[in-house]
């Protein structure tokens, strides 16, 4: 009887362990080890913190690091601001007939690769792009304006790319909310802002957190959007890592950067969960 069920456990446990140990745990240990490997003064292999020291000594690296973190947080917040009204509209305002249709419509663009979406924006925004063409032919402007390659555009691109991952948890948590809660609050004399801040936001907090985590991760780890839409100032930390690996052939330095990025993302998510008093397991499921 006992063995009978232990066998089942073994069958389920083995592939899961293989997956997690071989593809998650060991690679990250290797990443850490790689970041600590270097050469001593005589050119022999040695353990060293020099790659981390480089990070802290060179202003430009931690500048990019902080910049990336701040922009990713800002992206998360902006994404929430942009998508919340839509999620609210879809679940609570528009007639129920259209809810499904609007939701599908909302999801559709995200079935298409991020690259195609960014490319679409590039066609629209570039100096010889569609928007400039239209503005000129309407006579609104005389000379084309470069709308691509700056931070604002890059942020917009990041928001655009990650909207879905905010919208879906928001919609599902608002959908689960009974309209009568709002009706009751209204009946008890609450003003719309009170209803919003005391009833709706707390109710949706679970969805907001899980959306925020995913969006933040996607923004922080994004490579395409900052590289293609960002301008001459917009060095993103992932690009920095890529450069270390590809352009400078310095895998050890790149590994150190990678590990720092991992620490950063873990820390911010941990702090976010602590602040909102949630758990990772619950927030993600």
């Amino acid at each position, binding site marked *: 009887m006992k063995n009978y069920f232990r066998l089942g456990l073994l069958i389920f446990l083995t592939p899961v362990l293989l997956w997690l140990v071989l*593809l*998650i745990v060991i690679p990250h240990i290797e990443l850490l080890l*790689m970041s600590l490997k270097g050469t001593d003064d005589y050119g022999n292999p040695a353990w060293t913190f020099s790659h981390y020291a480089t990070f802290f000594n060179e202003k430009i690296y931690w500048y990019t690091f902080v910049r990336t973190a701040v922009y990713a947080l800002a992206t998360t917040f902006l994404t929430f601001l942009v998508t919340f*009204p839509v999620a609210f509209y879809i679940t609570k305002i528009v*007639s129920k007939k259209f809810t499904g249709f609007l939701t599908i419509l909302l999801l559709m663009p995200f*079935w298409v690769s991020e690259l195609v979406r960014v490319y679409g924006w590039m066609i629209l925004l570039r100096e010889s792009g569609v928007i400039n063409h239209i503005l000129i032919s309407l006579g609104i402007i005389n000379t084309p304006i470069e709308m691509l390659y700056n931070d604002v555009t890059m942020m917009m691109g990041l928001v655009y790319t990650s909207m879905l991952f905010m919208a879906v948890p928001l919609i599902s948590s608002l959908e689960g909310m009974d309209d009568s809660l709002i009706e009751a609050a209204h009946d008890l004399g609450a003003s719309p802002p009170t209803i919003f801040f005391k009833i709706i936001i707390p109710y949706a907090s679970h969805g907001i957190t899980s959306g925020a985590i995913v969006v933040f991760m996607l923004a922080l780890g994004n490579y395409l959007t900052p590289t*293609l839409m960002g301008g001459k100032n917009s060095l993103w930390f992932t690009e920095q890592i890529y450069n270390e690996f590809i352009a400078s052939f310095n895998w050890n330095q790149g590994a150190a950067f990678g590990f720092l990025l991992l620490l950063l993302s873990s820390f911010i998510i941990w702090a976010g969960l602590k602040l909102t008093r949630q758990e*990772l397991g619950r927030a993600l499921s």
Partner: protein
Amino acid sequence: MIRTLPQSGLYKIAFRFYVVLFYIFLFAPLIITCLLAFNDSSFPALPWKGFSLDWFLANGPDRVGLFHDRSNLSSIVVSAQTAFWVSLFSVVVGTMGAFLFEQEDFPGKQGLYFLALTPLVIPGVILGISILLTANSLGIYFEDNFGLDVPFLRPSFWLVVLGQFSFITTFVLLVVSARLKKFDRSLEEAALNLGASRFEVIRYITLPFLRPALIGSGAVAFLMSFENFNTTLFLVGSETTLPINLYLQVRDGSTPIINAVSFLLIVSTSTIALINLLLSNRKS
């Protein structure tokens, strides 16, 4: 405030206006990308120079349409193969994980579950490089010590599959677990009680119950893999996947052939989405 409560006219109009703007924002880049695939011009830009199918059909020498562009066509095939294997593996292992965490009990379960969720909060780039580094170290180790050259321990098709599998499995795990949570364990006991073996219980009771989740998560896994860029970037060998190939082209400068590829992607994925919608509507 909501549909059952009285709303002021301005509130309604402002809200509707915002939502319309939002959807325009959402679709503008896609629509323009599709339209310009048919522009009879060598650049993906206005002005409109007339309708043309060149970017699909032309066969050189000035313009090479998508259907004659070997590099794009073969990268589509590579992406589809990658996505096929990734979704297959991740659905199998993710489902096993769901069973493990929902139905079994063992010491350290909480910790392992936490570990299984972490791929979601590891940036894809990091996942890619850490797997690359490990594969590289292992590869060198095997080579130096045994003179073995293990093909999948270097950037290659199978390393891409492994890299994508490593985090897509977590998505499958979550989707299947959510469905499995709703599963009434007494159905299993009933089947056991009626004489089914544990394997038969899974085969006839649990898996049929999970089927919508398996199909759904499989489809999502396929798309996630098909679209993945960040993790793949570091692991790709000589078989380039579509997103990487497109990236190289967009970075190198763009011809409307990218619009043509995008058009195909957009049309085929929305068709699948629509079919899916219709099917699920008919069922309910």
